[in-house]
């Protein structure tokens, strides 16, 4: 049995791959893990909706789900936080390095990598 996080990710991947909103039943059909109970799929879809990653609309007696944002938009948001481009300089993450500019850095880098080859 996969963990909940793993399941959420694969369900999001399925929904991102669809061009139109899908029902829970369709998600269940598309998912690789055939043994998954329909209620589990429903639960995960519900969780993702509550977290704001999915939007749902009524379609007869079922819900149709679509992603709130594209995968790329989420990746971009992560990277904005990671590179601290939001500019709030919060302590939420610790980052490896900031940008450097100038030829000095490049010369130094070349010198350092040449040392490696010796």
């Amino acid at each position, binding site marked *: 049995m996969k963990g909940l*996080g793993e399941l*959420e*990710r694969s369900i*999001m991947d399925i929904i991102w791959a669809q061009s139109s909103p899908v029902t829970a039943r369709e998600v269940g059909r598309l998912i690789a893990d055939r043994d998954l109970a329909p209620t589990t799929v429903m639960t995960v879809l519900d969780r993702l909706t509550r*977290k704001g*990653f999915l939007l749902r609309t009524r379609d007869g007696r079922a819900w149709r789900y679509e992603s709130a944002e594209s*995968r790329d938009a*989420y*990746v*971009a*948001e*992560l*990277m904005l*936080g*990671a*590179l*601290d*481009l*939001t*500019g*709030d*300089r*919060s*302590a*939420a*993450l*610790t*980052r*490896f*390095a*900031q*940008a*450097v*500019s*100038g030829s*000095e*850095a*490049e010369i*130094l*880098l070349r010198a*350092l*990598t040449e*040392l*490696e080859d010796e």
Partner: protein
Amino acid sequence: MITAAVLATLALVCAVGAWRFTRARWTYRAPHVAIVLWQALGVTWGLAGTGALLSYALAPYGQGVLQGLRAFAVSALNGGYGPAEPYGLPRILALIVGLTALTVLIVVLLTAGVQTLRARHHHRALLALVSRDDPEVPGVRVVDHPGPAAYCVPGLRSQVVVSAGTLKLLSPAELTAVLAHESAHVRERHDLVLLPFAALRRALPWSRVVGRIQTEVGLLVEMAADDVARRYCSPRRLASALLRFGTAGAAPAPHGALGVSDSCAAVMARVERLVTPGPELPRRIRYSIVAFSMTLTASAPLLWLMPH
């Protein structure tokens, strides 16, 4: 009255000390020790500054700051039966300013803590959806993005994250160095070190000294992580990873963030001490600074407890 004067002096000494300390360069030779001193200065400045005002304001109770505050609260609840000595305007002002400052400091710290936790929670939720495992780097989350990024999301279950661009950019030895650096952040909980300084910065955004202090502590934390990492990897590879990262990033510094020239100097300072490490600060001096920091940290709370 004496306590108030001592606390005021202590606050002043801390403020002047912090201002001078931002220019100190021996800190690069012992970043861990310098961080301890910064924390001591911060805590003492806050407690001594507010304590001085409150100590003066509550002097008529003759019970010191902490007991005085209790006595004040009790008399306020009992319909204003206070001390025998009449309450002058200066004391009332000191009381208002002192209580306000204390409240602001506490609220700002708590808000910063809550906001940080919330930002991390959101970041983690996103990460869970779009990151993947990579057999090349076990235990590290990989995000498919061409830009260079390596960071950690601190917490009880810390996660180290790198972008696909990073995996492409760095050699295996450099990647090892970067991961060693990030796990040092995780192990030593550097996020908790940075939190109060970021909070103070948010409370006093116009203060240039506070801005410089935050930058300085941020740099010291990076150097501390570099020092831990160099035990597990080649310092040269860590330095070249830093440079590769910095030159490849070329992300424009956003408004309000560290200026490019500042950040450039910071990266260069880190590279320099990795490639040509200076002599370590003598053990005797390091221990004295730690002992001094501990005494400083203990002094303000003791003065809060002292009667008169």
